[in-house]
């Protein structure tokens, strides 16, 4: 059994009558990249804050690396936790390097590594500029460098690609891949589901304070059993395709932009592909569109 680094047991947090988090059980394995998604107000941030020890659960318990987040020994665990909040607030009067020095001292991390930390996120050129002069993307990079101080074994990343341009997003995920290969556990939230669907090992979907589903993207796809789409290009008509797929549970065939979109249940994928191959040269192109994480997300919501 995989080593569990975060265990949440029947965790709830109420704000008056509002149940922001309601009886959540959660196990996150060491070394995995875990996604936490949900609508605004689903309870992600509250659960994040409880995992970080910023909020106490109304009931239930969260343990990280075997220590209760509300226990006295959690201070030592914190030294190996990195956190990038959604709304990052840094000190405008400090330079980027001074910001890292300040947090490195608090974390008892090696302050000599701060320059390397800025280089890692592409901010070496702005090390001595005041944070007030940073763009949103630069602040986000600095926040990421801050989260990486002290070589954390556990990273909490709340909407980490906010404000980053496409190149920076690619660099960001490249760093995450590197960290994952070093065995760092990462938990991230994102509203841009396309960014994370190919990257997370597992994810949990939250709704109304509860975890609605948890598993790999593929496992969630299978749970929802959404139809897939075969996109066909070439000199074939809808009736020819319908004839070729005769006997299979085809849901619909639509012509879109000179191509045919065939919707069918996932279990019919392989038989349909085999039958389409018999159509010969008339079919010049074929794409299989599996349900995206976004489709799964909305499928579960329904």
């Amino acid at each position, binding site marked *: 059994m995989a080593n569990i680094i975060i265990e949440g047991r029947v965790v709830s947090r109420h704000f008056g009558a509002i149940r922001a988090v309601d009886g959540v059980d959660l196990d996150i394995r060491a070394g995995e990249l875990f996604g936490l998604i949900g609508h605004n107000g689903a309870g992600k941030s509250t659960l994040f804050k409880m995992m970080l020890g*910023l909020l106490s659960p109304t009931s239930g318990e969260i343990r990280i690396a075997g220590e209760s987040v509300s226990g006295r020994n959690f*201070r030592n665990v*914190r030294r190996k936790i990195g956190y990038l909040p959604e709304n990052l*607030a840094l000190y405008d009067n400090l330079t980027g390097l001074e910001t890292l020095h300040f947090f490195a001292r608090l974390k008892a991390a090696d302050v000599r590594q701060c320059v390397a930390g800025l280089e890692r996120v592409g901010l070496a050129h702005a090390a001595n500029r005041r944070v007030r002069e940073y763009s949103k993307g630069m602040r986000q990079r600095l926040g990421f460098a801050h989260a990486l101080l002290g070589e954390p074994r556990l990273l909490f990343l709340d909407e980490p690609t906010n404000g980053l341009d496409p190149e920076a997003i690619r660099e960001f995920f490249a760093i995450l891949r590197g960290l994952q290969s070093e065995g760092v556990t990462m938990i991230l939230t994102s509203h841009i589901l396309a960014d994370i669907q190919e990257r997370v090992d597992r994810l949990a979907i939250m709704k109304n304070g509860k975890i609605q589903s948890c598993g790999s993207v593929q496992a969630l796809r299978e749970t929802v059993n959404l139809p897939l789409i075969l996109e066909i290009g070439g000199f074939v008509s809808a009736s020819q395709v319908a004839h070729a797929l005769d006997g299979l549970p085809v849901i619909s065939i639509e012509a879109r932009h000179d191509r045919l979109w065939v919707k069918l249940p996932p279990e019919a994928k392989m038989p349909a592909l085999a039958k389409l191959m018999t159509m010969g040269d008339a079919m010049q192109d074929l794409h299989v569109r599996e349900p995206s994480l976004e489709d799964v997300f909305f499928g579960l919501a329904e």
Partner: protein
Amino acid sequence: MIELRQISTIAGKEFRDRIRNRWVLAIAVVFAAFALVIAYFGAAQQGTVGFRSIEITIASLVSLVIYLIPLIALILGFDVIVGERERGSLDLLLTMPITRLELLLGKYLGLSAALTLSTVAGFGLAGIAMANQLDANALMHYSGFILSSVLLGMTFLSLAVMISVFATDRAGASGLAIATWFFFVLVFDLLLLGALVATGGHYGGQVFPYLLLLNPADVFRVLNIFSLEDVRTLYGMATVFPEELASPGLLGVIMLLWIVAPLSVAFWRFKR
């Protein structure tokens, strides 16, 4: 277990911020200028210009400082926690391996160091300018005045930190800070005097000196006035203030309690 390293890191940042934005320099210049103006031109209305005596100078300075330092301390500290909370940086700090007590103490000590440096530098510079006219006894009195001013600043800074922990936003904190200043510096004494006059001095006359201890500004005033023989007579304090309360050591301890009590309440609230 309290880690001093964490406290000193937070305190160091707070202190450096005030040095860097020239807050310390500005307040020190204000204190030095006021002290010198009062020392040399305090009797101008009576047609006299020039240094008279340290006792008269301190008495005049006390009247000024009792308004100024509480206000400066409250302005300095009212947003120390609520400001971080409103900006969103408090969560970032609290995810560090630091306890809430260490954070609160670090903030308080850093701001106290900045206020202390301003006070000592400002009044100290004025003291150096007056030094050739002061004997050892006068120097001691003036040093006592500076020390008590530092304590006065620290008491109101402690109140400011408490306000900052309780307030839900900066605007509310600033309102509470102004109300606190208004109450302790302007209203409290008027209420006591009003009660005394209204009852013809029949009720509470003996309790009156003890009630003064409930106001750190009054403790500061009593501490300074009682250490100056001439001024004590001038104020008529000797007749109303019991001898057992007139010890500078005891009054100093009461000021320390005024530092510890609001900070303790602030911590109690902050850890919830």
